[in-house]
């Protein structure tokens, strides 16, 4: 399934300092949940310090997941179903000022 994966708020530093990826994620019968996308993203795209991206089956505290610019809480978090062409954005919350 073709997706856009984006990183922001410093999270891109874990992913080779690249903010946008166009990816094609293997999936069966066009069914793909965010829960399955997370380990794929970690294994395929992450370059550095994997412990800063995932914790257990989900993302680390402090990371927001957005599906087409909407908080994944609005579509079922790990169970959210992705569609061809969706954009998944991972944002690290910032504390600086």
């Amino acid at each position, binding site marked *: 399934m073709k997706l856009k994966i984006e990183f*922001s708020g410093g999270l891109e530093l874990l992913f080779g300092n690249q903010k946008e990826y166009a990816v094609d994620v293997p999936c069966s019968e066009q069914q793909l949940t965010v829960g399955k996308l997370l380990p794929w993203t970690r294994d395929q795209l992450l370059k550095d310090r994997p412990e*800063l991206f995932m914790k257990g089956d989900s993302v680390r505290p*402090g990371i927001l997941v957005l599906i087409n610019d909407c908080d994944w809480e609005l579509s079922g978090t790990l169970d959210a179903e992705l569609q061809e062409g969706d954009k998944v954005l991972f944002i*690290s919350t910032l504390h600086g*000022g």
Partner: protein
Amino acid sequence: AHQALHGLSKAQVERYSRQLLLPSFGIAAQGRVCSSSVLIVGCGGLGSPAALYLAAAGVRKLGLVDHDVVELSNMHRQVSHSEQRLGMHKAASTAAAVAALNSSVAVDTHLQGLTPSNAVGIISQYDVVIDASDNAPTRYLINDACVACGVPLVSAAAVGTDGQLTVYNAGGNGPCYRCLFPECPAAANCSRCADAGVLGPVPGVMGVLQAVEAIKLVGGVGQPLAGKLLLYDALAGRFSSIKLRGKAPGCAACGEGGMTREGVAAFDYAAFTGGQTANDGPPVPLAVL
């Protein structure tokens, strides 16, 4: 007689004339701004421009909170300070800048910083709070105290070349900071300016945007930037806006039986954030340069 009508003096009418001319703002909103109070927690990269623009816009009272002193490594982004005030307490330095710009603004400085024991007492005196702090424990503390006191919170952050901004607690079903981040990120997941660096004008952009949102709230104009998170990517020259979740029913701050005023004073923010301190750490060694 004129003064009684709109509550503004002749000097105020002249000073704020360009805002009085604005059909969408006008005398009513300016009058509300001139009787409002705003607290700024943090007189650094975000708080500096927020303080200057809120003072210029004519709020009645500005509260300034910080516990640090002005250092040379602050000067590339914290434009309310000056070389002459290096070593001065940051809140006092920003107060001096405010006084030079608009002497009619009352300034209260809180030089000890925000703590669990003083937060509710300070925050309950203000109409709007601006989170311009630089660390996780203070961000949770400000959130909880604003929830407990029912005060709207304009929150922003900036690290590297990225900025983030949202408004909490401004009515509607928007989340609070704890709804979004019920569990504190580990220190290694918290990007701070002292560790990761920051391009000077990036917090500047976000801090002025905080002043805009605070003026909208106290002036009663426009749509507050609530329920959404505004992202600024300075290198790409791009802003985007994302839609946030609603309030979490079980939120430890804004949920049923959530945070009370007494609860804020009793909460152990240091333990919750895994021992992160409210102090900006020492500068990373630059010997490599």
